[in-house]
């Protein structure tokens, strides 16, 4: 039987039906793209809101004890950890001295060597983030149990560190937003603590309370 090279004209109903289903597919793909874009924008908006809230809270006090409490409150509420240490670097830069903490063994973490292991990297200005959540595995070292450690940077110098130990049980790990919060704390918390220290030394005689 001779082969017919010419395509058979298709049934108009089938053509319309194909066109309709093609349009539906395109619309569905467009809706999907739009939904993904909306979800990304909402996630971005939440990231910005969280960073704004952290920044406002971080700068809300010049009292040294309140400033330290605010850092812990930010980490508890916005990151999801209730095991926190805040150290200051001693004058010769050899040790980190515990200034404030929550939910950890204070005796164990009262003084840590600043020139060993993870802390050595941190006092050089690098944030440490553990790949796996704390307590899952690994060698027992001075810094075991740390989920993250953030340098406190001011004017190109490291003045201390924030240690984050266990995360809340329902939190699987640290995410992109947590890392952005760590960057914010690394760059702003030291300046807040320095200002609070100066304010305490001046006895509050540097401004006037409104009202």
């Amino acid at each position, binding site marked *: 039987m001779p082969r017919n090279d010419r395509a058979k004209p298709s049934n108009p109903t089938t053509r319309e039906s194909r066109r309709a289903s093609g349009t539906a597919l395109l619309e569905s793909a467009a809706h999907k793209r739009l939904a993904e874009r909306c979800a990304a924008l*909402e996630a971005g*908006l*939440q990231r910005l*809101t*969280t960073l*704004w*809230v*952290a920044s*406002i*809270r971080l700068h*809300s006090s010049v009292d040294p004890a309140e400033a330290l409490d*605010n850092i812990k*409150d*930010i980490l*508890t*509420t*916005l*990151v*999801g950890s*209730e095991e926190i240490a805040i150290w200051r670097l001693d004058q010769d830069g050899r040790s980190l001295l515990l200034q404030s903490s929550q939910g950890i063994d204070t005796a164990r973490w009262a003084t840590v060597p600043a020139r060993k292991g993870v802390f050595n990297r941190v006092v050089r200005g690098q944030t440490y983030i553990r790949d796996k959540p704390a307590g899952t595995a690994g060698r027992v070292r001075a810094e075991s149990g740390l989920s993250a450690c953030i340098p406190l940077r001011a004017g190109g110098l490291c003045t201390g560190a924030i240690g984050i130990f266990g995360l*809340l*049980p*329902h*939190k699987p790990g640290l995410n992109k937003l947590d890392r952005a919060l760590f960057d914010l704390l690394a760059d702003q918390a030291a300046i807040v603590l320095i200002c609070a220290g100066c304010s305490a030394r001046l006895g509050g005689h540097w401004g006037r309370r409104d009202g």
Partner: protein
Amino acid sequence: MPNRKKILLVDDSSTSLLMTCMLLSEENYELITARDGVEGFHKAQDELPDLILLDVVMPNMDGIETCKVLRACKKTEQIPVIMITSRGGVASLEASYASGCNDYVIKPIDAGELLAKVKNCLGEWNAEE
């Protein structure tokens, strides 16, 4: 303009209060705050909010106790309560529901989840959203 829905936020953490206020501020709700369970209960009686967001861990009277007191009071027994908790375990959630809460949100708060649960409790949920 229809009356704005009133939401009472009870939390001892200033960071948590500010974050929740920011997340709800776009929705044109009237927001009232209290710093612990005792203040929260008094404000609930005075203001009769449409919804209460209640932190679990608080000084003076914690969220579980506050919710029980709210449910035992004639003026506040019908007000929906969403518990906000950093304790995501089954025991903690069971204790929250046993105290009479309608729903719960786990910290750190996810904006989408919070808004969906708030709208659901206020009867504002739109399936198209």
